[in-house]
């Protein structure tokens, strides 16, 4: 009898907490599902139009300007703000490079877009023998556990 009373009290408290949390969640705004204006191709600077702080990520818009440094280090942003990325980019944009099994190297898929910073342009087959020894972690970030066919053809 005493145990069931304790369980009932605990459940009631948990229920009240859950209701309170739900009520507070309703006060938190969503990021827009998609950017309300069409965004042109080419490098984008959020700060061209936005001056204030992005409400969803709570970071200034200028933090997301697509500078060369941003593109090279976009993993820091994708790891915490992918919902903001998704307001402009379809996920297939990411899948051009990030996939467990690729059909061709991204630079070939996007050969007509030399302005995109695609990895492995030119004769990377030769280059990777140097770059891979110099900085293997940079290979691992994408190819780490994917066992890509082109890798295992030689590395076995």
């Amino acid at each position, binding site marked *: 009898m005493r145990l069931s009373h304790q369980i009932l009290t605990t459940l009631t408290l948990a229920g009240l907490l859950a209701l309170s949390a739900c009520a*507070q*969640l309703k006060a*938190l*705004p*969503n*990021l827009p*599902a*998609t*950017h309300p204006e*069409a965004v042109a191709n*080419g*490098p*984008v600077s959020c700060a061209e139009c936005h001056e204030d702080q992005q409400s969803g990520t*709570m970071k*200034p818009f*200028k933090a997301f300007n697509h*500078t*060369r*440094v941003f593109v090279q*280090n976009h993993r*820091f*942003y*994708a*790891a*915490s703000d*992918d919902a903001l990325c998704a*307001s*402009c980019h*379809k*996920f*297939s944009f990411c899948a051009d490079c990030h*996939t467990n*099994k690729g*059909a*061709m190297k991204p630079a*070939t*898929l996007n*050969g*007509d877009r*030399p302005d995109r910073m695609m990895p492995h*342009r*030119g*004769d990377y087959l*030769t*280059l990777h023998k*140097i770059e891979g*020894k*110099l*900085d*293997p*972690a940079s290979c*691992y970030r994408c*190819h780490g*556990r*994917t*066992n*890509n*066919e082109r890798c*295992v053809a030689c*590395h076995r």
Partner: protein
Amino acid sequence: MKKVFSRVLPALFLAALPAAAHAGGSFDSTTILRIEQDSRNGYESKRFVPLTQFLGADFDKLGDGNLSLHLHGWLRANLVDGSSRIGNDDDKLDGNLTYGYLQYRFNNANARVRAGRFFVTEGIVNEQVDGVSARTDLPYGFGISTFGGATVHTATPPGQPNDGKGDGIFGGRFSYRKGGLLEAGLSGIYESSAPARGTLPTGVLSGNFGSHRLVGGDFWISPLSMVQLSGRASYNTETSKLAEQSYLMQVTPGKDLLLSATFDQYNDRDYFFSSILFSDMLKKDGQQSRAAGASATYSTAKYGDVSADYKHYSRDAGKGDRFGGDWRGTFQDKSLRTGLGYHYLRTTPDFAILPSASGSFHEIRCYALHDTKGYFASVDLIDYVFKEPVQGKDYAWEALAALGYHLTADLSLSGDLSYGKNPQYDNEVKGLLRLTYNTTNSGKGATK
């Protein structure tokens, strides 16, 4: 299995199409026909004619308007018998479902639930999962995300009985944000025990491979409006050592000037531990990789941006320095985009491809792209000049030209032709035809 899969994927897309009739959505499709011939002394000449179809679809506003379906994958058919470039792959058909998931997006708190095949990028977590994920913002700046399901298995390397992955996986991230000042996250990943691997090849260290289990943290801090500091670190609970730490600092002392500095450190054994492929490449225990770099970029509205960068690499095996600069220009309302770059990588001899060669090389690249409403055309020249010849050649260059026509606003047809000379080939000629259909999201934003 592949044959079954190659029929399931298009069936999945076709089954989903009726839903699109009642929902806002977007599609992207890229069809690429490549024609390549591989002729090398001492080898049988081979012709490669693969036809590859990439398909993506996003069906928004299903059900009550908050439900959406997202699909992306590719299929490849080798149109000439035995034209697969990869070893013993005799199948004419190959394919992959990159992602395919249902998402329910709640009306508040950036809360969402996903089910299906998807990628998870949360803190130190970067995984492809067949399962379920959920995330939401919480009051007072907190946030939480979690996921769980089956591991997406990949190809089995030759000589191994499996791909080295466990069958189940779960993880998540807990974060805190204070507006405009900081974000900090704790994240972790736990994969079920890695399967037993095959006999170790000669020269491979034992004890360097095991289960994929990491915990870590990430942060973003902006103590002053002109300064941003980002970082992440992961700890391998199987080896009980730090696997990775990476930091990025960005300073904008003026509107047009961006200064940056990076530092990355990896304990190779602990970072590569769950990769059946990379763990085999480890030559000794306790090996570390470090890279520290800096860059300065000056941007002008009229002439584009110019940047200079430097990076120092340090490994037990040797050291290297890379330095150079780039210029990127955008003109005529971004329809004309150009670039010019030069970099020199100077390394100790340890990184040379061959003992007689050098690991040092110059990289020169220039490109131009003109994209109008009617046509688009680009040229891209890239040249690597080796300090010492590699297999008798001290260069590897490639010139690529692309020409395309916008048949409609969403549909375009283009062709690429490239020619090059490098240590692998005396002459390398490649061509492809590309048909692209790409629509914007229903709520606008960008195309791909």
